[in-house]
């Protein structure tokens, strides 16, 4: 589905990723964990082509997208839920969802919208409310719903648990599990290592721009190094 081969990414002269290789197979949930500043978000942004990888290759569904335009990448069956939710706060919930289906026909939008409301009944209740007035958890649901509107094969989530209450986090992760049931591939980037690895088929540990460990989610959870560094011993 998504393959990164020896990707190096630079911000100006500073190299943020020193040759990262990651593979996400179809139908999997893959988690990427790492501390602050490890390069998690950079890795995601490189997939989106903003900034582009300075060397190495990014392959999405068999197609090399390393040097594609961000706008083209985001229209090719992949959707991202950006860090910090970033819903359009002045727009209503429904309008936010419609923006997610910007390049789809009205009939498709209607169908995806119903589907999103099924996944998140809460959003249906708040259909005409302005997104900025909702709670963090609701906004996160909306951000995920908006990403699903374009009917992606793969969804990338950047820190979906950021700043949310534990109960809401649980809900969000349940939904992510549900997405896998629907055949959507999930690439999850998290600081909340315990939850992320619990859910994931496989996991990667990123440290200062390098992949330090790579294993199944379960094995990583039991790995003493991971436990020490990310799970609080």
């Amino acid at each position, binding site marked *: 589905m998504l393959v990164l081969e020896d990707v190096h990414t630079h911000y100006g002269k500073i190299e943020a990723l020193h040759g990262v290789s990651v593979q996400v197979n179809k139908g999997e949930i893959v988690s990427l964990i790492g501390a602050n500043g490890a390069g998690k978000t950079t890795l995601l942004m490189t997939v989106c082509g903003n900034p582009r990888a300075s060397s190495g290759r990014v392959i999405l569904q068999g197609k090399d997208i390393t040097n594609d*335009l961000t*706008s083209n990448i985001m*229209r090719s069956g992949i959707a991202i839920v950006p860090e910090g939710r*970033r819903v359009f706060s002045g*727009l209503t919930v429904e309008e936010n969802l419609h923006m997610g289906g910007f390049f789809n026909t009205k009939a498709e939008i209607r169908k995806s919208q119903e589907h999103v409301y099924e996944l998140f009944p809460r959003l249906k209740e708040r259909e005409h409310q302005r997104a900025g007035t909702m709670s963090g958890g609701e906004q996160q649901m909306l951000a995920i719903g908006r990403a699903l509107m374009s009917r992606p094969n793969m969804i990338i989530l950047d820190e979906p648990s950021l700043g949310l209450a534990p109960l809401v986090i649980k809900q969000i992760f349940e939904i992510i599990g549900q997405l896998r049931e629907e055949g959507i591939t999930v690439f999850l980037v998290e600081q909340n290592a315990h939850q992320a690895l619990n859910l994931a088929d496989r996991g990667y540990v990123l440290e200062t721009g390098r992949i330090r460990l790579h294993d199944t989610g379960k094995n990583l959870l039991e790995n003493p190094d991971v436990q020490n560094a990310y799970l609080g011993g």
Partner: protein
Amino acid sequence: MAAQNFKHALFSAVVTLIISYPILGFNLVSEGISVQLEGADTFTLVGVFAAAVVVFLFQLFRDTIMGGLGKLPALNPMANRPPMPQRKRLKVESVLLTLMLIGALFWPFIASRGAVDLATLVLIYIMLALGLNVVVGLAGLLDLGYVAFYAVGAYSFALLSQYFGISFWFALPIGALLAALFGLVLGFPVLRLRGDYLAIVTLGFGEIIRILLNNMTNLTGGPNGIGGIPDPTLFGMEFGRRVKEEGNTSFHETFGIAYAGEHKVIFLYLIALVLAVITALVIRRLMRMPVGRAWEALREDEIAAKSLGLSRTAVKLSAFTIGAFFAGFAGTVFASKQGFISPESFVFLESAIILAIVVLGGMGSQMGVILAAIAVTILPELAREFSEYRMLIFGAAMVLMMVWRPQGLLPMRRIHIELKPQG
């Protein structure tokens, strides 16, 4: 608290004195060949001290006064009224618009020549403000050099008619397209800029255009401007007393009526009206099209918009280009109305006024912007008697307006796109 306010008030009063006394309190009087310094008359001195006292009192009771101002919105009986449901609002709006349009159509036949002339100017400002509304109000790109596109439109007509004898009707689309091209060209360097930085670059662009026009003396006539710009014709009929161009006929002879200077003014007004209506309708349509929603998405959150596959380049450039296009329209009409243009008509103050109209009316709201354009153009004319204090009143009105109603006269309300239920 009180002691601090007192200290602050005293300080402000002293600063007022320090600033105003040397400026207003002394006069230079020439006696023969020498210049002498004289104290001003008592009236001015009393005025200066009175001003200091006013500043002192205002600062002393600042919290009470500003608190009172803050309560002003509550005095508005409509403040806490729930917003009208969409269907009703749309109905009210369309009725109001129709009435305004009918009124505007009959205006030239009931009003004086000067009033019609002023109304033409209002329409030009409406076009400009609607165009800038796309850039600032919808796409959220703060453009301080919008007047440059207005200048491009006006100068392209003036130059085309001077060098190639091209008439108003051909120059109109050319002027608008040229302005749009300039908008596109400006769009490229500012793609990556946002907020303050964007404002500074556009400000610079506006100045570049004006200074170029001022200095390319052999092409544009520099500060002397270009005169003798022809009036528009109606199917080859001219509105002057005598026909200037061969092959044309004159309006009053064709219809067998007596010549009147008003015909031309009314005709120009009607052209401006039609163009303003076209501008409003086109932009209204664009707002409901995907491109309109893309502008708003970009304004709300650039990163989110990009994450949905919107191209920042395309969205920003389209906003700049379309905004500039309508400024070109307005510029062509302006050149034709004035018959003479010079760089002086396109100074930064114009940009500021157009921006003020957009902010005053409510960013993104067409009705609001139209109302504000009318207010901002007509009020200074009504206040001609205090012409010295015009800008003072304008500024004070602006401050009060922003305290009282920061969202503008008629803030924007989006039209919901309702999907029809299936079946």
